[in-house]
């Protein structure tokens, strides 16, 4: 093994004096102990002092209370006690610490009490000559002691201290300076004058607020005319003076304020502009226009704002000039708003409109009060609302026509003269729409009505189309009539052509659907606009559903009666082909959409509540399902069959009254015929079931519009029920 090589520098290192280590250790330990002792003693002194102070406070506090609430009218014992206490406190006050504690107590109490007790307390402070200690503090070289002395004197409202504190108003030490400023303003009413006269240093916003707070709370304070300090060389003094002028509403300073509009300091300019606004100095308008170009954007905006606030129409050319010349977006916007403030709606929003809407807007010829019609867009049967603005300055493009389209405020909300034109004429509606909707001229359907109708119709039709497609494709070739033919109002692109494969019956039904619209349109034909307005909106919006149960049939027949008698109402007959009975099962819809577990659960329910419809539905499922579900279907089918044999259920019509809520009164092969005839119909035969065909005759004694709604609403209600 190779021997370890020891570096030479270790071998040559000087010997280390171990005794030195010992000395250092002892030395540091002694220092540490001394420091610990000092800290310990210091803390002990402090805690002793605190305890002493607390003890003194305990003694002095009741004495102070006695002094504060002593009354000469008291009895002899009280008077003796008072005199003894006075002697005692005089003795105590010979001790400086006691004086300090007493001062502390009085200052604490001064914060917490008010009214006559506070006055007495301040008087007691003065009587005990504690303020001399505060004066002594003012001569200290330490800033915190001076500051506390000033604070004490100002809190205890020692008026005599004013002259002693004044020199500190411009002290180079900011804490003392601020304290002195507050004390000066607090102690005497003229303190604010002295302060504003002599202040050389900056006055912070916070300090200004505090000073304002002090002078605001001063009783009997008569504010001097602060315009005197608008000429100060200290910009903060000028600013503070302007704020005080505004606060005390000293409108005698207008001339000086107008001069300050040209001040080189932006803050002063802004404050002066605020004053100009506050006092409505109309003379400032010319100056504002002159100084406008030489200012920064922020000042420009304030100037424009002020012009908008104070100005009249004579300022319009100036503002127009600014709008055209100014490049700064914010300044330009302010100029526009000021212009609109002087002359409302001089400039209306135009650029912000979307491209399409812009295209729709046509600028009217520059003639006053001329109203122009705006053609509606193709395929949009929305009534056009033309808004025309009269203009004196055509260059501003004041005439703007706005079509009442969603997203634009209604005409009555727009602050312009608005004229609502007649609804879009028939020519404005595309040929396709005419075919689909056939809205005649004499049917002034409101846009809102149309939109609501659209929504209702759309919702119903989507539901129906979805269901119909499903049934058509999966269940039965003729199960449910395809409803793709139904026109979608306002969405021509969604309207599909007639199914070429429709049966004759279906085509006939289509024709009847068109007739529904014709009723809608013709319903108002013979009515004046006023009459139409009388129809409550709710009646238009809420379709009157037809209930096909015995009880509800009466309601339906009332509706039918209401429609009957209107000679020109064409006959309506919607004939649905017979559909498999299982469609009427409440389980069918859900069953065909759900997963396997749910199907199993549903089958249990079918057994529990099912009847013949469910039986047929189960038969249908036997050919559709497989596996576990098929097994269960077979089992349930068998059980339900035996159950029904034991307890046969009557026809649905017979049981309709019991099954009102479930909507099971509709039975197999219901053929709904909503019939409106020209002739009088025997009320006894207004609703009858003959060979599965339900004939409903309408005899309207309500408005045509309502009738149309009833028919439409009832029709969709029927369809919904059927689908359910």
């Amino acid at each position: 093994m190779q021997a370890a090589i020891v570096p030479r520098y270790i071998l040559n290192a000087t010997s280390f004096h171990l005794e030195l280590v010992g000395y250092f250790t002892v030395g540091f330990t002694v220092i540490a102990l001394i420091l610990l002792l000092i800290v310990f003693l210091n803390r002990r002194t402090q805690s002793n002092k605190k305890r002493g102070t607390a003890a003194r406070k305990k003694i002095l506090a009741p004495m102070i209370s006695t002094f504060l609430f002593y009354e000469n009218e008291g009895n002899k014992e009280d008077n003796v006690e008072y005199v003894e206490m006075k002697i005692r406190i005089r003795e105590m006050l010979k001790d400086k610490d006691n004086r300090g504690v007493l001062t502390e107590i009085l200052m604490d109490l001064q914060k917490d009490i008010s009214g006559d007790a506070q006055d007495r307390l301040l008087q007691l402070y003065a009587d005990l000559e504690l303020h001399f200690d505060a004066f002594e503090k003012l001569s200290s070289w330490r800033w915190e002691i001076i500051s506390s002395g000033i604070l004490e004197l100002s809190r205890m409202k020692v008026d005599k201290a004013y002259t002693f504190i004044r020199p500190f108003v411009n002290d180079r030490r900011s804490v003392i300076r601020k304290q002195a400023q507050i004390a000066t303003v607090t102690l005497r009413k003229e303190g604010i004058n002295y302060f504003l006269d002599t202040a050389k240093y900056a006055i912070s916003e916070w300090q200004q607020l505090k000073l304002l707070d002090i002078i605001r709370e001063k009783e009997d304070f008569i504010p001097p005319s602060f315009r005197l300090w608008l000429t100060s060389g200290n910009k903060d003094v000028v600013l503070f003076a302007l704020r005080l002028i505004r606060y005390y509403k000293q409108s005698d300073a207008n001339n000086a304020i107008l001069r300050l509009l040209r001040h080189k300091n932006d803050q002063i300019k802004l404050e002066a502009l605020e004053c100009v606004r506050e006092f409505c100095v109309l003379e400032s308008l010319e100056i504002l226009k002159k100084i406008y170009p030489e200012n920064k954007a922020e000042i420009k905006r304030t100037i424009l704002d002020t012009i908008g606030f104070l100005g009249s129409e004579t300022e319009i050319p100036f503002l127009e000039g600014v709008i055209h010349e100014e490049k700064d977006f914010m300044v330009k916007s302010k100029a526009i708003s000021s212009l609109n403030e002087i002359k409302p709606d001089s400039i209306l929003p135009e650029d912000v409109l979307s491209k399409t809407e812009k295209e729709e807007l046509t600028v009217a010829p520059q003639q006053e009060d001329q109203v122009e019609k705006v053609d509606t867009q193709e395929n949009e049967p929305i009534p056009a609302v033309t808004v025309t603005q009269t203009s004196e300055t055509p260059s501003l493009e004041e005439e703007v026509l706005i079509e009442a389209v969603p997203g634009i405020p209604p005409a009555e909300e727009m602050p312009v003269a608005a004229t609502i034109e007649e609804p879009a004429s028939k020519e404005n509606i595309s040929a396709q729409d005419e075919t689909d909707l056939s809205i005649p001229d004499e049917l002034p359907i409101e846009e809102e009505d149309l939109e609501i109708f659209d929504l209702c119709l759309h919702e119903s039709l989507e539901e129906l189309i979805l269901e119909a497609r499903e049934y058509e494709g999966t269940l039965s070739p003729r199960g449910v009539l395809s409803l793709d033919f139904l026109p979608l109002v306002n969405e021509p692109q969604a309207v599909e052509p007639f199914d070429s494969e429709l049966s004759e019956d279906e085509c006939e039904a289509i024709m009847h659907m068109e007739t529904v619209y014709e009723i809608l349109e013709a319903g108002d034909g013979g009515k004046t606009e006023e009459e139409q307005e009388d129809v409550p909106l709710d009646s238009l919006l809420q379709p009157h559903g037809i209930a096909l149960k015995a009880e509800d049939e009466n309601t339906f027949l009332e509706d039918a009666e209401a429609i009957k008698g209107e000679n020109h109402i064409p006959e309506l007959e919607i004939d649905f082909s017979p559909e498999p009975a299982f469609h009427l099962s409440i389980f069918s819809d859900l069953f065909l959409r759900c997963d396997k577990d749910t199907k199993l659960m549903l089958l249990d329910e079918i057994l529990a509540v099912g009847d013949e419809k469910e039986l047929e539905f189960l038969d249908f499922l036997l050919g559709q399902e497989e596996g576990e579900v098929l097994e269960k279907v077979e089992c349930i089918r068998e059980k339900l069959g035996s159950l029904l044999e034991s307890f046969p259920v009557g026809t649905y019509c017979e049981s309709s009254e019991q099954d009102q809520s479930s909507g099971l009164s509709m039975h197999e092969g219901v053929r709904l015929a909503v019939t409106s005839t020209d002739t009088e119909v025997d009320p006894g035969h207004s609703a009858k079931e003959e060979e599965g065909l339900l004939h409903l005759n309408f005899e309207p004694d309500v408005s045509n519009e309502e009738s149309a709604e009833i028919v439409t609403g009832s029709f969709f209600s029927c369809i919904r029920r059927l689908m359910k």
Partner: protein
Amino acid sequence: MTPPKKQLLLAEDDDLLASLLNFRLKKAGYDVLLASDGQQVKELLKNHIPDIIVSDIMMPYFSGIELIDFVRNELKSQVPVIIISSAGNEQNVLSAFELGANDFISKPVSPSELLVRVGRELNKN
């Protein structure tokens, strides 16, 4: 025979102010029970319910709001409660009134005003 003194519970954590108000109230003829925190107040109230309570809102352990809640809901007492609150404590004052405080006085407190309010509340009852 002089009528019995009305008993007043003064709950105030500031010793100096408590001492001053105590002196003034005693001088005005009230039998004052002093409590410097919420727990003391609770102990005192469990033993005896005074004729009126004057309490600061901000107290250690148990605030004036909790005190009112305790008096009204736990003790089921309708003893008048006057609360003392510092300025800018409006929300607490509103809460106190909602819980059933009868009156409030804001700091700095005028002892004379407090006496008037106490007297008025006692006269109401």
